[in-house]
């Protein structure tokens, strides 16, 4: 009962000093809305990085030729990955589920009077599974075509649009470097991944790419899909040992190839976005702290102003803890109302960021609970000293205070 009257009193006294209460709450409001929207921005960034990376395929190891070095100076990419290397890997390492050789080059692609320069990827049928490519229209390359110099092509969505606009390219003939190819399918768009655009490419059988289109015998990369549950770094080591042996690299000499581990990239990205989130959250947290100081300031003023009231209350029997609780309730009320308003503004802000900026902001219930409980704690922490000061007043001094 006393609690309800105290709460009612607190609400009335905040209401009686509307402007002052709002100004005192403003710090908390800004702080909480900053925490909410910054954390939302952080988790939005994290999620979009994760989606992009998992679109490239997990459990993936990519072997590429290393830098050719002559007395410590890089002199271009070494050409030393062969189909035999790929065969050896798939045969002797049991955790490798499948792999695909990849040859890459760029070439002019023509259809009737339209043409575009794009990246040509020569690869085997496993490429689609390993790299999470789906077919939008038509079909994949067949095994026979892949192994036997089939002149078929699958277009990335960007290329398909450039050459065919709205028309269906499946079944049409295009020319790559002047050689006729039959379009058998179109890839489903994956979106730009920052460092490469998988939509801007044409996929053809690797045999065709090596022998007919580019006339090379070395591979640009080997994409390896590791069995689920196997440890990527262990498989990476096994491949390293195997390739060093096959390339006859002496102990102590550098590898002439590089292995990119998708899981490591994922981990690094997660770590970077995590740091980003902590940084944003930290800056926002500081403003919340500043808001707390604002509340403390106002509470000190309130206590001084209401010294006589405290004296009256004490003379009619209020104990120190009654007074303490009264002022503490007032400051907690102020900070939690501020917190609630801040959460509203923060969520609105996150919505606006998502709508009107290239970034995505995702408000998590965790950040709402975190910032609300933090603002309540700010109220307790910064309200305690003024309340304690009020409770400790000597009743006669308080009664005489003018």
């Amino acid at each position, binding site marked *: *009962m*006393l609690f309800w*009257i105290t709460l009612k*009193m607190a609400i*009335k*006294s905040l209401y*009686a000093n509307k402007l002052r209460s709002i100004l005192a709450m403003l710090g908390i409001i800004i702080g909480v809305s900053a925490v909410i929207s910054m954390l939302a921005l952080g988790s939005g960034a994290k999620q979009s990085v994760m989606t992009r990376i998992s679109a490239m395929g997990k459990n993936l190891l990519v072997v590429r030729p290393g830098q050719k070095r002559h007395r410590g100076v890089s002199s271009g990419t070494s050409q030393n990955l062969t189909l035999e290397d790929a065969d050896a890997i798939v045969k002797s390492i049991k955790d490798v589920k499948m792999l695909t050789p990849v040859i890459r080059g760029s070439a002019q692609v023509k259809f009737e009077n339209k043409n575009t320069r794009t990246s040509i990827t020569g690869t085997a049928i496993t490429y689609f599974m390993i790299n999470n490519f789906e077919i939008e229209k038509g079909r994949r390359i067949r095994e026979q075509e892949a192994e036997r110099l089939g002149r078929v092509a699958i277009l990335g969505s960007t290329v398909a649009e450039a050459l065919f606009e709205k028309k269906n390219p499946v079944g049409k003939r295009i020319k790559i470097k002047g050689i006729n190819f039959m379009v058998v399918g179109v890839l489903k768009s994956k979106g730009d991944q920052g460092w490469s655009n998988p939509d801007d490419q044409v996929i053809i059988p690797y045999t065709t790419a090596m022998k007919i289109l580019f006339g090379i015998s070395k591979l640009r990369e080997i994409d390896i899909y590791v069995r689920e549950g196997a440890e990527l770094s262990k498989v990476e080591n096994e491949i390293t040992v195997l390739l060093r042996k096959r390339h006859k690299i002496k102990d102590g000499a550098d590898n002439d190839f590089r292995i990119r581990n998708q899981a490591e990239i994922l981990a690094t990205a997660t770590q970077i976005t995590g740091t980003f989130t902590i940084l944003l959250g930290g800056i926002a947290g500081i403003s919340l702290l500043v808001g707390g100081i604002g509340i403390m300031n106002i509470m000190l003023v309130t206590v001084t102003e209401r010294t*006589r*009231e405290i004296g*009256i*209350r*004490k*003379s*009619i*029997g*209020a*104990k*120190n*803890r*009654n007074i303490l609780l009264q002022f503490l309730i007032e400051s907690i009320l102020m900070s939690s109302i501020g917190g609630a308003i801040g959460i509203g503004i923060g969520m609105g802000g996150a919505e606006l960021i998502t709508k009107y900026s290239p970034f995505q902001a995702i408000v998590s219930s965790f950040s709402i609970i975190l910032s609300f409980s933090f603002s309540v704690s700010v109220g307790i922490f910064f309200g305690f000293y003024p309340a304690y000061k009020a409770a400790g007043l000597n*009743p*006669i001094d308080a*009664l005489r205070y003018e």
Partner: protein
Amino acid sequence: MEKNNIEPVIEVLKVNKSYTMGQEKLHVLKNVSFTVQKGDLLALTGPSGSGKSTLMNILGCLDSIDNGDYLLDGTSVLKRNANQLADIRSKNIGFVFQNFSLLSRMSALENVELPLLYSETKNSKKKAMEALDIVGLSDRMKHEPNQLSGGQRQRVAIARAIVNDPALILADEPTGNLDSKTGLEIIDLFHRLNKEGRTIIVVTHEQDVANECHRQLHMLDGVLQKEFFKKRKKPQISTDKTCEVK
């Protein structure tokens, strides 16, 4: 040396009190002793600076004493901590102040109820309504202090003072802020409450008000001077050892 089936509500025994103001030591109360019996209506008079306010604060358990003893309702209030004193104030003493000292933003009823809430008394609302009824303000319960006249405010303050049924009601210049007519109404109210058996001490410098009381204690320079009795004083008021004039 008659009766004394009536227990004293207040016994003040050789109380001394001094304050240190800078370098100076002010001896505010000098060996003050007196007794107040249950059912007394007593006026405490004296010019400002005479120590009557200090005495009143001590009687109200708001201030401590240097030496001597003060028994309220038969028990000494010495060596009590702040919380115990707060408890005594809420259960045994009712204060009425010159400037009413009601809490704004609370209704008359809530103001009267507050001491009961602090002393965690049951049925607080009902008791508060009864107290307002005694002072004749049943129809103003929902009003806030700024919606009431001075006399009404003081009656709310009196209702607040009697709500816990205290042994003693302490009124500090209760008519000081009121016009004479309203002041008389308040004094009448005190008389009525006194007839119902309540013990009341009125601190005042208005002789009219003091003359209305059964007994008058006069303070001067920290010393209790003399005691005036009203002619038609109640028979049960003891005449012995009520005052030790130095």
